[in-house]
């Protein structure tokens, strides 16, 4: 008979570590998808997911069972991703010259006809990734959760541990930061 999530967690807490494996199997796809939003290299993604699961195992006794396990795990995943972003604040300044030809072409097409359909979605996707990489960690986190994943402010507050007003302030700053980066790209390319 298949055990429920609560039974698996109770078993892990009483020392049966093997009961943790079904939880890892069930929720790893979601954790991987989250980690891939913040890390580009696959080795970094795997490191983040591994850290999420090790933390989940260590802190399992703090899971109160009032909300679904998935919510608790995703909070842990988002916070681990944020720590990763803060720990990997490399030189985020990239210049237009670092853009690939496909990305440049996509931008050209956008400038000549902003209303046209978005051909070469892959180039656009790469350009988004490049812009997001230049954002500061809080800005990237809030743009990803609020604009790309379309989560509510309340939900972001729950996931990140930031207060609702702080999420709103960071969202405002993040949008401005993103516009500044896009203007810079435009100036470098066309002026």
């Amino acid at each position, binding site marked *: 008979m298949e055990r429920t999530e609560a039974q698996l967690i109770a078993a*892990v*807490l009483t*020392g049966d*570590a*093997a009961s*943790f*494996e079904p939880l*890892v*199997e069930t929720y*790893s*796809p*979601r954790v*991987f*998808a989250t980690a*891939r*939003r913040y890390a580009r290299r696959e080795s970094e993604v*795997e490191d983040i*997911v*591994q850290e999420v*699961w*090790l933390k989940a*195992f*260590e*802190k*399992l*006794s*703090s899971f*109160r069972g009032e909300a679904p396990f998935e919510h608790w795990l995703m909070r842990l995943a988002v916070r681990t991703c944020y720590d990763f972003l803060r720990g990997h604040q490399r030189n985020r300044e990239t210049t237009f010259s670092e853009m690939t030809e496909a990305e440049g072409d996509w931008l050209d097409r*956008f*400038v000549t006809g*902003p209303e046209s359909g*978005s051909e070469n*979605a892959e180039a*656009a*996707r790469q*350009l*988004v990734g490049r*812009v*997001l990489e230049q954002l500061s960690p809080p800005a990237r986190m809030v*743009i990803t959760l609020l*604009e*790309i994943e*379309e989560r509510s402010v309340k939900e972001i507050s729950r996931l990140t541990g930031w207060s609702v007003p702080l999420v709103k302030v960071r969202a405002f700053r993040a*949008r401005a930061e*993103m*516009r500044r980066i*896009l*203007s810079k790209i*435009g100036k470098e390319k*066309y002026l």
Partner: protein
Amino acid sequence: MNVEELQRKLIAVARANPPSDRVPFAFEKRIMARLPARARLDEWALWSRALWRAAAPCVAVMLLLSAWSFFVPNTATPSNDLSQDFENTLLAAVDQEPPADSAW
């Protein structure tokens, strides 16, 4: 260049292309191999959980007792003389002692 429109379009592209949720082969085995022998019990978390759970019944009991002491009429005769009350309480046991001759 219309920055607002570019921003809107790039975000739309990002929304339309969610990242893959592919899990590397046998990833769960790798995690299981790295787990410590036993999940560490967080004693502070246990205490805080127990105290939070105890808080609600404690508040309920406190409210019940407050309501009871407020609404139940006081049948005892009130006295303003604290020293007299104290003396009565202290000597209550002496007053109740049987006469010396009855013990024999």
